[in-house]
């Protein structure tokens, strides 16, 4: 047994190389290759059944890849048992040991590693402080609230100082307010411990809030990897744009390409600049995406797209304007309510939409 798995001073880097996973005739993961960097908060984001949890379980060792390799700091760990990997998991249902106290739960990993009792006690004490449960060490875990159990699960997984911490939708059982504060908490813990976090979620907001980088997954494949900003503002394909936030899809035609930008003509005849994903040269008819908050509503004739204001949805901080653009499609404009009072537009009015500079993005497909 190596000692490196408990004395790691830095987070480990995970390399996934050509991972495929079949369950009988069902392919859960299809040729995924990813590099998760050291000390990174990395999120696997996707709808249920996209293979993100299966991928996590293969890093933990609960599943073996049918094909491909899992590397930890360059060493192949694909065939190691879960207890041989310096990687710990925070389970969706916490999986706390009901017959043990809070302290015994947190110290479990170190005890299994054969650490002396004095060391276990001091680590447990530090962990209790880290997750704000000082003085609760002797409580049975069954008497804790959901949020407290969540923190015990975190402390238990962090106590052996793993190189990588895996989190399997750990916040999904908490109510909204608790979830928000735990998001901040998780981010803080990741920065304080320097451990690489791999977080699995289907909640796009959670992913955008916490992650350094996000991999968006669908039907067993990785669709796009990038920073939250990349994923939100520069979606490479329709699935990513659609899954994260609200989006307007527009048909356009490429006129010219120069450097990183392309000049495209909208159906109305207006021309705007749009960025495009790496690896393609846009030409002919393309689909572009524009986020609702990246457009402004104006009086008829002032913008790039003309239409009829179909619906105004009041959301407190914002208004959503659903505009039926001439030619058929619906365009949503989101505008902040900077002032109180009426927004100044009324339904069935003819309006015009102006798209901000450098916000449009051409999709790959």
């Amino acid at each position, binding site marked *: 047994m190596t000692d490196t798995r408990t004395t790691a001073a830095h987070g480990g880097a995970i390399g996934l190389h050509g991972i495929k996973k079949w369950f009988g005739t069902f392919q859960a993961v299809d040729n995924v290759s990813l590099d998760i960097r050291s000390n990174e908060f990395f999120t696997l984001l996707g709808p249920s059944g996209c293979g993100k949890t299966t991928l996590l379980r293969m890093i933990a060792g609960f599943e073996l890849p049918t094909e491909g390799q899992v590397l930890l700091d360059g060493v192949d760990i694909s065939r190691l048992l879960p207890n041989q990997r310096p990687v710990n998991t925070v389970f969706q249902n916490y999986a706390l040991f*009901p017959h043990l106290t809070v302290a015994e739960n947190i110290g479990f990993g170190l005890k299994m590693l054969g650490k002396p009792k004095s060391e276990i006690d001091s680590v447990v004490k530090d962990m209790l402080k880290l997750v704000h449960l000082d003085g609760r060490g002797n409580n049975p875990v069954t008497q804790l609230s959901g949020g407290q159990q969540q923190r015990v699960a975190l402390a238990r997984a962090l106590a052996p100082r793993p190189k990588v911490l895996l989190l399997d939708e750990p916040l999904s059982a908490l109510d909204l307010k608790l979830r928000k504060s735990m998001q901040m908490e998780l981010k803080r813990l990741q920065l304080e411990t320097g451990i690489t976090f791999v977080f699995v979620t289907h909640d796009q907001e959670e992913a955008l809030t916490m992650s350094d980088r996000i991999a968006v997954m669908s039907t067993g494949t990785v669709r796009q990897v990038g920073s939250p900003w990349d994923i939100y503002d520069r979606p490479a394909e329709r699935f990513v744009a659609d899954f994260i936030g609200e989006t307007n899809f527009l048909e356009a035609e490429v006129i010219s390409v120069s450097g990183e930008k392309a000049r495209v003509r909208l159906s109305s005849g207006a021309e705007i600049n749009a960025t495009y994903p790496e690896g393609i040269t846009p030409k002919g008819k393309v689909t572009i995406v524009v986020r609702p908050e990246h457009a402004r509503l104006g009086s008829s004739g002032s913008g790039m797209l003309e239409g009829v204001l179909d619906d105004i949805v009041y959301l407190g901080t914002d208004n959503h304007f659903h505009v039926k653009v001439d030619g058929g499609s619906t365009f949503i404009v989101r505008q902040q309510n900077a002032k109180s009072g009426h927004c100044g537009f009324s339904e069935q009015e003819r309006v015009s939409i102006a798209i901000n500079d450098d916000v449009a993005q051409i999709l790959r497909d």
Partner: protein
Amino acid sequence: MAKSFSIKRQPGFATIAMFCFFLLYLPIATLVVYSFNSGMSIATWEGFSFRWFESAWNNQQVVEASWRSLKIAAVAAIIATACATLAAIATTRTGPYRGLTFKYSVINMPLLVPEIVTAVALLILFSRVKVWTGYSGLGYLIVAHSAFCVPFAYMPIRARLESMDLSLEKAAADLYASSFQTFRYVTLPLLWPGILAGLMLAFVISLDDVVITEFVKSGGQDTLPTYMLGQLRRVVTPEMNAISTVFLVLSLAIVTLFFFLSREPQKNNE
């Protein structure tokens, strides 16, 4: 509006229920009452006394048979529970696979096979073994009792395992526990109430057995039930009642304990 259908409101429900209870418990009640009879009869009441309890206590044969029964039941229950625990883990801690149903059937077979068939089979087998080995001790009875107690011990243990969260064992493995450590520190402590329940059930079943014991035992190896059966052929005194009463109390105590032990986990899970 008509009230929802309730079996309790049907005519004759209470009467039939009472009749069934009488049928079930009247004989037992009579037996217990007459164990305190001061006379020789098990049908005519002559006064209250502990005479037959004393007489049973002083009857060397009864004491020996009781000890033998308890010894066999204790050892057989432990062997059966150990086997049942292993069987339960093997049948619940793997994914479904071909042959699993077959294994269930094999484990539970003793519940379905008529006891007399097992008894005759064991008699034939053991008579051969006796010739080969020359051994004729209590071992045969213990082996026989262990065998038919396995499914009884298996049931509560399997039920307990099935209600246990599989992710606990995964969490243990994730936290560097080897498979033995996982069993030692997580599975076993959580399984303990199920194992105790299985142990007690097996103990009571073994204590009570007549048919298989009657066939397998050698001379001078009477257990309490077979001893009592033998006595019935001679003269029946309230001593039999007294012995039965003691057994009844013992069984009730064990079953009550079993009940409380198997109830506890539900409280814990909340």
